[in-house]
């Protein structure tokens, strides 16, 4: 009874959310696994690249409905997977000396011998510089100034810091220092730390730059994208507006200031169709370019702001009867459909956003864009709907897409991961998972998506402050 309830619950959710249902079944069986808190395991958990299996997937395959004819239907697969997982729990697929079950429970990869739980023990006597086994305020002071201000404190500053009467005084001082440093150009100025966080999202190309620092073929000004990004990540502002903003931000230098404005001469999309950095002149120029169905724009936004890279089989929420292949690119081939059943419905809301074109039509929302400019591309191209699907949830247009994306766990996890990597130096490790999960949940809940509060939270973690 319990198992059938489990499978049906997964299948029902899979109808709306996921197909194939492996990630959902896995997480129904191991709901407390770090790979299931706010996310699901990617295909790479069991596959090198589907259908080729890694060592863990291969051991599962042998235990999966033995003797049943292949291929299994989704329902048969979902029914059989929990028993197969249980059958291999006590094995050690990657030979790293840790059972598959323990790796699942601790969030390490059962198919990767280099990934296994790390046991920490404090050894040795006192260290005159740091308390290496616990949060160390002196260490944090120096690190905080380097991370946020870009330079170490002086000897005199460290002495003054240590002279505060209590640790509470020192903690209060760190709060003010963090706030001071995040107002510096090192943090928020041109090419500062926040710009570095934004580079992989905006993906600038100097030769195409318009405006300040123009390139040889000036097409769009991506400094507007950086300005909006920094605006949303500073002060008491909602970081989700990087996806949902219907305004722009102007940057001035010496000292750097950012000002919210209703319009900019370098931006063309009308107020009713703006969706933050997904619809700027640069995003449309570079990610839409000349394409009818801008899959690249959708996959880049999914990767950059929601942390899900479809090329790595992450964030696959297959939509039934998709892909339709309206632009006749052959994406219904089995090798393509696994990803395009998610990607194409993600892309439909971009259908009316035009990229590179004559000045009159470039980088703007054009109703019936496909009918006006691409009608001869493929027989069914004009049937491409504007209605799409993200995370299994239907959306009418890109602004709804942005709203669902920005409100998702994926956005909170991706944003927290950005700053975790920036400040701690690596993505959250399995042994840091509990702190990481608590941090992104507070960012989403208590902190209401304010990055400034997230930063204060991050520097209080053991991962940041224990040398």
């Amino acid at each position: 009874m319990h198992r059938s309830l489990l499978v049906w619950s997964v299948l029902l959710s899979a109808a709306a959310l996921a197909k194939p249902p492996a990630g959902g079944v896995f997480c129904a069986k191991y709901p407390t696994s770090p790979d299931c808190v706010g996310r699901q395991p990617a295909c790479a958990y069991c596959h090198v690249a589907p259908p080729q299996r890694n060592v863990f997937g291969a051991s599962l395959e042998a235990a999966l409905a033995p003797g049943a004819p292949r291929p299994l239907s989704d329902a048969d697969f979902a029914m059989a997977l929990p028993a197969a997982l249980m059958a291999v729990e006590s094995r050690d697929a990657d030979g790293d000396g840790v059972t598959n079950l323990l790796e699942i429970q601790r969030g390490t990869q059962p198919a990767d011998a280099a990934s296994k739980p790390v046991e920490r023990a404090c050894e040795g006597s006192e260290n005159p510089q740091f308390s290496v086994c616990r949060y160390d305020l002196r260490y944090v002071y120096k690190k905080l100034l380097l991370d946020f201000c870009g330079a170490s404190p002086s000897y005199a500053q460290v002495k003054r810091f240590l002279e505060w009467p209590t640790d509470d005084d020192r903690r209060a001082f760190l709060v003010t220092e963090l706030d001071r440093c995040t107002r510096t150009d090192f943090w928020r100025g041109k090419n500062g730390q926040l710009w570095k966080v934004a580079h992989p999202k905006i993906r600038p190309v100097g030769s195409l730059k318009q405006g300040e620092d123009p390139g040889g073929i000036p097409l769009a000004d991506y400094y507007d994208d950086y300005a909006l990004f920094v605006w949303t990540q500073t002060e008491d502002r909602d970081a989700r507006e990087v996806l949902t903003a219907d305004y722009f931000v102007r940057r001035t230098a010496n000292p750097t200031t950012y000002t919210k404005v209703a319009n900019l001469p370098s931006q063309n999309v009308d107020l009713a169709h703006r969706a933050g950095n997904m619809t700027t002149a640069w995003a449309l120029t570079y990610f839409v370019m000349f394409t009818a169905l801008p899959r690249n724009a959708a996959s880049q936004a999914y990767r950059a702001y929601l942390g899900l890279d479809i090329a790595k089989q992450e964030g696959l929420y297959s939509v039934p009867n998709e892909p339709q292949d309206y632009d006749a690119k052959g994406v219904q081939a089995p090798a393509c459909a696994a990803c395009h059943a998610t990607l194409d419905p993600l892309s439909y809301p971009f259908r009316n956003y035009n990229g590179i074109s004559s000045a009159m039509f470039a980088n703007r929302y054009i109703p019936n864009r496909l009918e006006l400019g691409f009608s001869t591309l493929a027989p069914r191209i004009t049937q491409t709907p504007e209605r799409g699907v993200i995370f299994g949830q239907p959306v009418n247009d890109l602004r709804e897409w942005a709203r669902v994306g920005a409100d998702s766990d994926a956005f909170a996890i991706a944003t927290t991961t950005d700053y975790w990597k920036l400040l701690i130096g690596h993505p959250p490790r399995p042994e840091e998972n509990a702190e990481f999960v608590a941090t992104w949940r507070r960012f989403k809940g208590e902190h209401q998506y304010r990055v400034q509060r997230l930063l204060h939270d991050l520097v209080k973690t053991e991962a940041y402050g224990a040398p």
Partner: protein
Amino acid sequence: MRPERLLALSSLAVALSGCPGRIIEPPVPPIVVDTPDAGSLARSARGNLRFKGPERLQADFAAALELQPSDVCTELGQYQCATFVHNVALGGVDPYGPGLYESSGITAVTTPLVIDRLAWSACTKRVDLDLLAPGLAQVFRGVPMSNGKLTNPEGQEVSNLIVDLTRRALTRDPYANEVTRYVKLAKDLEATSAQPARAWMQSVCFAILSSAESVFY
């Protein structure tokens, strides 16, 4: 203190220094801490050292030696070492041209060479400036010299300078064995260098600035 008394004392200090417009600060208190036993030090469970990268290295070297960041190191006298020429080798990004949007996250085979380049450039610049105008010296000051040699390598002034340099670059006091080592270096250089005092200042500065403790955090 009344303002006129402060002004008088300041004037006296300026007169004694022989350097118009600059007041010589009192000597650095000679604080040297016991050398820890490396074998018994607590071992970090996380081992999460981070490389400072181009901007932080340049800023810290500049602050330690009281240079402008742009004066720390240039190639051909005009191209910034840290933020332009060797930026990527130091873990920086180069997004607008080659599309290097994220740092590699690891130090490259050339990274130590570039760190040495930066540290040596900054140290020689500071030493040159301070020896050229001793009255205006910012870092390498207060050490008696004659004919290009330290008058007394084992003197208190030399120890004071080691303390000051360590505090500037590593924000801590030196260990006793560090002071011993740098004093010994001074004596060694007397036998091998044409300008032993200058060579010693450059070498101690370089050793401290290019140390793992200086470039990681």
